[in-house]
């Protein structure tokens, strides 16, 4: 169990150089807030989007290093957004971490690109786990 030890900057790789960018596609404001704060503290440039459509547009416009993607969202859900991201030449190289409480992994799995995309269940992941995952993917 990872209790709240003090967060050091061990995970803060590459800060001296160009800031890594992360796009958070999430409709729940409280969760956007927590994730945004955490990644800013880790030295990331954070972009946010509140639904799948905005998220996909932001991914094209911002070309982030990594995307955190929720599934159950209004306007366009995460599965459709994932499909778009992974089929658009401008975005299909961007690693996506599906971060959701949606329990039906098998519905998402077919749209994930093996090796590039990952799946994390929100309720089982601490912020530290998410940061470690993102840093691992980007290292």
């Amino acid at each position, binding site marked *: *169990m990872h*209790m*709240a030890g*003090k*967060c050091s900057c061990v995970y803060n790789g590459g800060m001296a150089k160009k800031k890594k960018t992360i796009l958070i596609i999430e409709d*729940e404001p*409280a*969760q956007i807030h*927590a*994730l945004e*704060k*955490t990644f800013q*503290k880790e030295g990331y440039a954070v972009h946010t989007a509140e639904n799948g459509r905005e998220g996909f547009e932001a991914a094209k416009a911002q070309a982030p290093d990594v995307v955190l993607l929720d599934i*159950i969202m209004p306007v366009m859900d995460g599965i459709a957004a994932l499909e778009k991201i992974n089929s658009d030449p401008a975005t299909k190289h961007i690693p996506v971490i599906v971060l959701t*409480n*949606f*329990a*039906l*992994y*098998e519905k998402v799995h077919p749209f994930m690109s093996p090796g590039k995309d990952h799946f994390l269940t*929100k*309720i*089982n992941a*601490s*912020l*530290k786990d998410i940061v470690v995952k993102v840093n691992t993917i980007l290292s």
Partner: protein
Amino acid sequence: MKLSLTQQALLLCAVTLLTSGIALVWFGNDARALVVAVTVSVAMAAFGVRILFSTIRSLNNLRSRVDEIAKGNYDVITPVRGIGEIERLSEAFNVMAFRLKHHERNLTHKAYQAAVLKEISERITASLDESEAVEIIAGSLGKVVPYSIVSYLTIRPNGTAFLKCHIEESVNKAFSEETKRILFCAFAALKGSALTDEQIEKTICFGAFFDEETKSSVRSHFSLPVYVNGALTGIITVASATPNLYKEDEVGILYAVTEQAGATISKMKDLIAEESNKTHSMLSSINEGLIMVTTKQKISIINEKAKAIIGIMHRDRPSLLDVIQALYGKFDFRGATDRVLASKRTESFQEFTAGASVYKIIANPVKEKDGDVIGVVFVFSDITKEKEVDRMKTEFISITSHQLRTPLSSMKWFLEMLLNNDAGEMPEKQRGIVNDVYTSNERIITLVNDLLDVSRIEAGKMQNEPTPTNLIEFLKSMLPEAQQQFKKRNQVFEFHRPDTLPRVMVDPKLVWQVLSNLLSNASKYTPENGKISFDLSLHNDAVLCTVTDNGFGIPEFQQHRIFEKFFRADNTAKMEGTGLGMHIAQQITEAMGGRLWFESSEGKGTTFYLSLPISNGAQKQEKSVQARGENDILPAL
């Protein structure tokens, strides 16, 4: 006039005395009187001797007569002539013989009747078919009376008839035709209408060949009607070439036998009809579809509900083929029948949807008292409502879990941020409180996750992706984190494993879900400073994972409930837990094709066994990458 023996003796004495008296008076005391008296006495004595001899002869006669009666020969009736007493005695014996003869004949007839009736009733009981009754009676006739031909007509309820004739002695065709004519006459007389050729469905003759050389003709005959439930079901005509063969009393017996056989069948038919009615009403009124198939692949029972489910309401008596065709593509009825007949065990089959309803199909072998399987009975139970309730329940849990997971994960993250001092440095007291809240939140998260797991398992939505898995390597990567719980409780943890294990075709995530549950239970239900060991071993075609603790154990009387949903053992009721863990573990194990069981002794500890089959094919014995063979005693991290 006949005199009895006594009378004759008295008469002789009287004549002697009288003659002697007269001579004495006549001659006076003279020698002549003496001569007369002596002469008369001698003559009388001679008479007496003759009577004696005659008596002895009569007695001899009588003795031989009685001897004959004793031998059972009642027919030798030679009236004994002679002296009155003996003649009367002889007459009495004759009367007795006559009576005996009569009684014996009666008894013989009765015994005959009883034997024939017994045979007929036995054979009819075995067949339970009234049309066979005629045949059975006709077949038994030979034991009662001699005949040349017996012709018999079996009349079916629809008016058609079978004609059969059994030729016992070779006769010519005309003889047979004559018998048939007599039979038809009897039919016309009994029915009031003649039998037409169209009514006769089949004619069969068997027995001896026709022989046109024989010039015999029908010289004696009689006909027997057979009535069942008041309806004429048959006529038997017996014919012989011998004249005056059938005595009235013999035919009388046969009438009686036939009548009684008809009555027996009537009673049995009534009884069967009553029972069949009861069964039919019962089968029609139950809510389950029922079909019974015999070992001869015939439908012996199908109730209205079953016909409705299958969609063959229009068929009155559907055949096995009708049922198979109606179920084609939905349920392999023949395959299921064969399976149950072979296994002789109850089998349940996949759910079956007909219209808007869902049915569960269970097939039971039908066994006789001696255990012989005589068929299979299929029960179609409507489980539509249960399914709907189940679906709603699953949906409810799923939605609720989702709705709960979002705020819980937000709380989890914010509490984490607080503890990380992201919102500023916290005094120790506040940190302690927030830590407690964090722990409580984690407990709710576990409960919600468990509920969601159960709902997913029940909805058949559990994700199971088996891949060839090297369990040693996999567990080595997973165990270090799990060991933290043992360290916290100062428990010793030992991991024993062989050098190598074949790869197992399982979903490692699911294996870990089961094992992490067993390990955390072992820690939770073992006191501090206790010992937990985890063993991996190969047993035949399965890898066995064993988790042993020396903890509280499970009370014996509750052991059978351990895998029930929400069950908590009495001795752990005060401890944290949802009662879902073991249920989930067992469900997952089943989904993986494995087996989960345990041995426990209260106060001594518990051992859980998880057996995972090495599925056939692809798996080969693989060298573990780590060559270290000794049992790892991993330090608690």
